[in-house]
């Protein structure tokens, strides 16, 4: 399978800082996967996202996106194929209304004016914001603004979406909705890859792969069921395994043979009731 992203020996130090924010990082992400990056505050997750998207250039290491090594020349063409959603919904709302905000990215892509309205309607309804098309950002809640940000990114039809704690300002229902929207999109488009930087362990447990960062280093990677097995390692950096996965591993320790495809509490309940 092709990799959408390959990071090799990446290190990054902010100007004027003595410690590396990212230290000798190497990993790759297969096309069409949903990858969660978890780690504590200051572990270098946002730094990594900014380097991958070319907002900052790393001196050491290489980034290969869509099979091309990222450099200044191909940055804009690579960026056309990826979309970033940041944490603070206020600071990425560019337009004066929902409509204008979604249009902003389309204008940059030189989408003909006549085609914009249908795209705006399509993607606003994907994130259920079609009733707020003419609302100004100051009249929207944080979650609604974040949905608009996601719609704005989706309308540009990216092949790689990066969420940098895009749901951290949302309530549990808002979080779940965004997650469901994203999984829905992935179902429609199997080659869409998602990198989600998150503090939400439950979200990470739904991902295909999990990367655990600590102090700029990659300390664990693999399937959620494997990563969250490493309880001692996680505890040493003060991360908890998600409830469901710790439950399953405890059950396994007790000799209950839980099948691999159990990935929700409901399925576990069904299995246990059999």
């Amino acid at each position, binding site marked *: 399978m092709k990799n959408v992203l390959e990071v090799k020996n990446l290190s990054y130090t902010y100007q004027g800082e003595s410690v590396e924010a990212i230290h000798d990082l190497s990993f790759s992400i297969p096309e069409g996967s949903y990858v969660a990056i978890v780690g504590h505050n200051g572990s270098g997750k946002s730094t990594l996202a900014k380097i991958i998207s070319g907002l900052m250039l790393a001196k050491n290491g290489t980034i290969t996106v869509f099979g091309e090594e990222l450099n200044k020349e191909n940055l804009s063409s690579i960026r056309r194929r990826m979309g970033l959603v940041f944490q603070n919904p206020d600071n990425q709302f*560019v337009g004066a209304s929902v409509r204008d905000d979604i249009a902003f990215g389309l204008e940059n892509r030189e989408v003909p004016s006549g085609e914009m309205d249908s795209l705006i309607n399509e993607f606003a309804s994907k994130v259920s914001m079609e009733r707020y098309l003419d609302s100004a950002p100051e009249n929207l809640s944080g979650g609604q603004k974040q949905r608009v940000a996601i719609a704005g990114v989706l309308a540009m039809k990216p092949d790689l979406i990066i969420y940098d704690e895009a749901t951290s300002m949302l309530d549990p229902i808002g979080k779940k909705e965004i997650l469901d929207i994203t999984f829905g999109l992935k179902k429609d488009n199997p080659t869409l890859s998602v990198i989600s930087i998150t503090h939400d362990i439950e979200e990470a447990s739904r991902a295909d792969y999990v990367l655990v960062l600590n102090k700029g280093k990659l300390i664990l990677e693999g399937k959620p069921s494997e990563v969250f097995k490493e309880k001692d390692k996680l505890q040493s950096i003060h991360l908890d395994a998600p409830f469901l996965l710790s439950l399953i591993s405890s059950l396994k320790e007790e000799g209950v043979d839980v099948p691999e495809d159990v990935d929700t509490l409901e399925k576990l309940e069904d299995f246990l009731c059999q």
Partner: protein
Amino acid sequence: MASITLGRYVPYKSFLHKMDPRAKIFALIILMVAIFLPYETYAVSFLVGGIIFVLTIVLLWIAHMSFLNLLKSLSALWIMMVFLLLIYMIAPRTTDFYAFSIGSWKIYWDSFIEAGRIILRLVLMVMISMILTSTTKPLDLTDAFEWYLFPLKLIGFPSHIIAMIITLALRFIPTILDDVQRIMKAQTSRGVDFEKGSLIAKIKAIISLIIPLFVSAFVRSDELANAMECRGYDPNAKRTKYRKLHFRWWDLFETFIVLLVFGGCLYLSISGFNPFNLLGIATI
């Protein structure tokens, strides 16, 4: 949210709302010039002012503007009115219409007439601008503004960048105002008093507001720049436009009417023709 109601866009579907902002800006400028043209006599000045006044009242009514709001925003002019009146009482008179005297100080009617004329002009200016801003979305105004800067673009002036800056500034005004409130609350809970206290204490209070405000604004602008860059914004690249301005027949009609009014005013101003003379009314 702070209450900036003066001249704020009021969503409504009147023909004024539907008009091309470029035509509206043109009308605004032309009417203002018409108001400020020099007229031979006071009577003609007031006649022109009066006609435009009635016109603007009708337009304000069509645009569903609240007259209460209008009066509120005009109330700031009261102080100016008194001030102007005082100045004209002291200033040398031009005619000889004795009104009354306070002690040995003779007051002439011209003070009132002259001050009245200026006030009328100011009120008209405020009203006409209010019609424009309350019936036009800030975004459309910006677009129209960019259009008017088009000739400058030919000589390399980055009018599209200026327009983007204005759009972003307008977009972030409510956000920054929210920040102000948030920081004020936070500082108040830390014991800063924004209302009472000596001058020094007040300055300190303001500084405790301004510094966090700047920090927050810089963080916001940094993140905004990142977000815009990620969404493919390049100030120098070609972009398509989602919103297009449409100049329709009614805009042409409106421009024609405004030009007609302006032509009439210009004629009155240049020829010094006094319509009151025809009616045999003596004027000053």
